[in-house]
Each structure stands twice: as structure tokens, then as C-alpha cells.
């Protein structure tokens, strides 16, 4: 016979079980949603991540527990690595690599911008000198990948190397990607001269359909031969791209670009948010991760631009060094930033198409870097 007094009733409320950490994490979740909705910070990811953070910090409800819906989603989609890989397939199906095929040399810009990753790795390890930080090599690698400016790659690597830091890493990655228009321009202006920014690049050559079809095979082949640890990421990216370009499977291409990526984005975001628990997030390490993330973006932008300047020299002034900044990926935001900064100097200089080359090269570059870290640091 159920006879319920005030005491047990009170015990079943959230109020009686609320911990300060949970309140703070719900506030963090609300902040993420605020940034997403009002400031337009990567809303497709940050709305689900923020709301997931709120849901998973509700006391007693256990929504991110082993029997909660977010717990199930995390186990099925993130622990297995399936969700970020499916997003990568969708990214492949949404990406036109034409600009890169027209200018293969811009791959080197995408390579240079990955320097941000490895410097950040060093930075994360150096933070261990500060009391309170104890990053392992795996932690540092997972943090460093924020510099890749590529959400699914960061989530994939973090889920493999450092699941405890996954929440903070994903939040940092998407936040900084949203901040690209604020972070990059000063660095770009600082490192380039007016003459350099003024360079008008020649129009892109025509890219044939066959080249676009062969491109995914070329990339995958090299990856298979030299860096098989990057094969899951590169493989799904090139598969999506082949669906897009081969021209005979429009149904599947459409499904990858829409149904699959949309549904997986909702679940991925919620599952990442479920990792934003107080004991994992409200630590000094998160502050370190946030600082390192900003650092990584700055370094990546700078090395991209510097490589741009080298190409400017080597080509005798045919390459506008600004496009190097797009090498961090953050597709297509970074390319737009390049375009905008270019227009400031020369009102008729549209660099968008030329920046798309290094921009998509950056996606490949950070997948390659992730593969290297997995191979050298992973168990």
C-alpha cells in the first residue's frame, strides 16, 4: 500500500537532488543554445549539444545514463565511431572538390594549416607543468585535433583517444569554428602586405566530370597505401563524394546529403551534449582545452597564411597568400572570410572560389593528421 509522506515526495524532486555542478552545466547548455540561436554559432550542432547538456544534467532522470535515451545514442553512435563517420560521408556528398582539382598545389596550404594541431599538442603537454593539469599523450592528441577545425574528425578522434574530454573538445571545436570570422582576419592582416592581399588570381580551369569521379579514388588509394589509420575517415568522405559525383545514384547522394546527415546531426549533437556532465566539464582542464583551442586556430591560420606567402614568392606573385588561411578547413566559413578580407583591399577581387581549394584540402589534411595521431598514439 502506497502511503506517501512529504519526505519521500520531496526526495523525488529535482530540487532536493540538485547539485551545483548540474546547475552550472545546465547554464552552460543554455549558453550554448544562446550562442547558437542568437549569435548563429554553428547552430546545427550547438543547439542539440546545448540541449543535450541540459537534459543530461537533470537530477534523477538519468537521461544520459546507461538506460537513458542519450546514453543509448552515445553507445550506439559515438562509442562505435559510426556517427562522425556518417557525417563525414554526408560532408563528402555535400562537397565539390572541383576547386582543389583545378589547383592541386593548394593541398600544401591545407597541409601547412595542420601545424596548428601539432603545436597545440605540444602546448597541451606543456600545460602539465601547471599544477592541476595531467594530460596524457592521448588526451593531448585529442585536444590538438581542435586545430583541425573539423567537427566530425575531432569527435571521431576524441571518442577513440580520450572519451572523457569528448564534450569539452567538441564544444571547443564547434565554438571556434563559429568564431573563425573573428579569429582569422586580424592574423591574416598582420601577416600579409597590401600588395599581397591585392593579388587577383587567374580564373580556375575547367574541371571535367571524369576528374571529379577519379578524385575520390586517387585520395583513397594514397590513404590505403601510406596511412591506413586514416582510412575510415577518408574512406567515408570519398565514398560520399563518389555518390555525389558519379551521377548514377542520385537517390543515394540525396539521402547522404539530407536524411542521413540531418538525422545523424541531431543524434550526434545530443550524444555529445550527454558528455557535458559537471564532473567531466567543470574542471580546470576544460579551461585549458578552451585556451588551447583558440591557440590552435590562430597557429593554423598563421601557418596557412605563411605557406601562402611562400607560394606567392615561388609563383612570382600569382597566389594570393590570404587563401592559405582557408586551409584550416571550417568549410565554407573560412573561405568566406578569405573572400571578405580580400574584398576589403580590392573591391573587385573575389577569392571565394580560389579559397575553396585550400578549404577542402584542410578537411583532407586534418583527417590525415587524425590518422597519424591514431597510428602513433592510439593503443
Amino acid at each position, binding site marked *: 500500500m502506497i502511503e506517501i509522506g512529504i519526505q519521500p515526495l520531496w526526495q523525488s524532486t529535482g530540487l532536493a537532488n540538485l547539485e551545483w555542478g548540474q546547475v552550472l552545466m545546465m547554464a552552460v547548455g543554455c549558453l550554448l543554445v544562446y550562442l547558437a540561436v542568437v549569435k548563429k554559432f554553428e547552430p546545427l550542432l550547438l543547439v542539440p549539444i546545448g540541449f543535450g547538456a541540459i537534459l543530461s544534467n537533470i537530477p534523477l532522470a538519468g537521461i544520459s545514463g546507461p538506460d537513458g535515451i542519450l546514453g543509448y545514442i552515445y553507445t550506439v553512435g559515438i562509442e562505435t565511431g559510426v556517427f562522425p563517420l556518417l557525417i563525414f560521408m554526408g560532408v563528402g556528398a555535400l562537397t*565539390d572538390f572541383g576547386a582543389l582539382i583545378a589547383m592541386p598545389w593548394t593541398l600544401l596550404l591545407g597541409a601547412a594549416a595542420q601545424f596548428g594541431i601539432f603545436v597545440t599538442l605540444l602546448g597541451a603537454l606543456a600545460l602539465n607543468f601547471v599544477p592541476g593539469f595531467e594530460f596524457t599523450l592521448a588526451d593531448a592528441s585529442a585536444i590538438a585535433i581542435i586545430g583541425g577545425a573539423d567537427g566530425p574528425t575531432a569527435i571521431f578522434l576524441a571518442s577513440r583517444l580520450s572519451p572523457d574530454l569528448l564534450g569539452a573538445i567538441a564544444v571547443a571545436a564547434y565554438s571556434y569554428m563559429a568564431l573563425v570570422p573573428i579569429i582569422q582576419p586580424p592574423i591574416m592582416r598582420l601577416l600579409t602586405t597590401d600588395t599581397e592581399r591585392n593579388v587577383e588570381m587567374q580564373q580556375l580551369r575547367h574541371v571535367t566530370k571524369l576528374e571529379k569521379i577519379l578524385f575520390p579514388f*586517387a585520395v583513397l588509394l594514397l590513404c590505403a597505401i601510406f596511412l591506413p589509420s586514416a582510412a575510415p575517415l577518408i574512406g567515408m568522405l570519398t565514398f560520399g563524394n563518389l555518390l555525389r559525383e558519379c551521377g548514377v545514384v542520385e537517390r543515394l547522394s540525396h539521402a547522404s546529403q539530407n536524411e542521413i546527415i540531418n538525422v545523424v546531426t541531431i543524434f550526434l549533437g545530443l550524444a555529445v551534449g550527454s558528455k557535458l556532465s559537471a564532473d567531466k566539464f567543470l574542471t580546470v582542464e576544460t579551461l585549458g582545452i578552451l585556451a588551447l583551442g583558440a591557440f590552435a586556430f590562430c597557429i593554423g591560420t598563421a601557418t596557412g597564411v605563411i605557406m601562402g606567402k611562400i607560394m606567392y614568392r615561388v609563383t612570382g606573385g600569382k597566389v594570393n597568400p590570404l587563401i592559405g588561411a582557408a586551409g584550416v578547413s571550417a568549410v565554407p566559413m573560412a573561405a568566406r572570410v578569405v573572400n571578405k578580407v580580400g574584398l576589403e583591399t580590392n573591391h573587385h577581387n573575389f577569392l571565394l572560389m580560389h579559397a575553396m581549394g585550400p578549404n577542402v584540402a584542410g578537411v583532407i589534411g586534418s583527417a590525415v593528421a587524425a590518422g597519424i595521431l591514431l597510428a602513433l598514439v592510439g593503443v
Partner: protein
Amino acid sequence: MPTSDLLMSGVNLMVLGMGIVFTFLLILVFAMKGMSKLALYLTARHGGSDEVSSQPSISGQDQAGTRGDLVAVITAAISNYRATHYKIN
């Protein structure tokens, strides 16, 4: 592992990592150049009029954004609705 050793590992990782990234993408540059040559040769040999424009675009965006006119919409609607090309077994 003491932090200094970790840092040494980190430096090794950095050198090695950037080395591999650059090497890999450099090889890819040449692979792509070779691939393009092959593709252009094959396209030329097979008559080779080719419908793909050189203007890269983030999928769909430009179509609905820039050329956001009726034709684009109807094309989109058609291609969207075509439950057609599914050979059913």
C-alpha cells in the same frame, strides 16, 4: 611519464606528424596531376564534351540561393520527387 619526456614525445610527434602530413599531401598533389592528365586524355579520346562546369559550389546552396528562380525550384522538386530510378529488385 614525467612531463619533460612527454614533451620530448610531443616534439617527435610534431616533427614526424607534420612531415607525414606534408609528404602525404605532396604525393597527393602529384597523384592528382597525374589523375587529371589521365582524365583529360581519356575525355578527349572519347569525344569528350563534358557537362560539368568548373565553378565549384557547396552543394545546392548556389542553386537555390544565387539562381533561386522558378526553374531551379522546379528542377529541385523534380529531382527530389523522382522516386523513379529505383530499380525495384
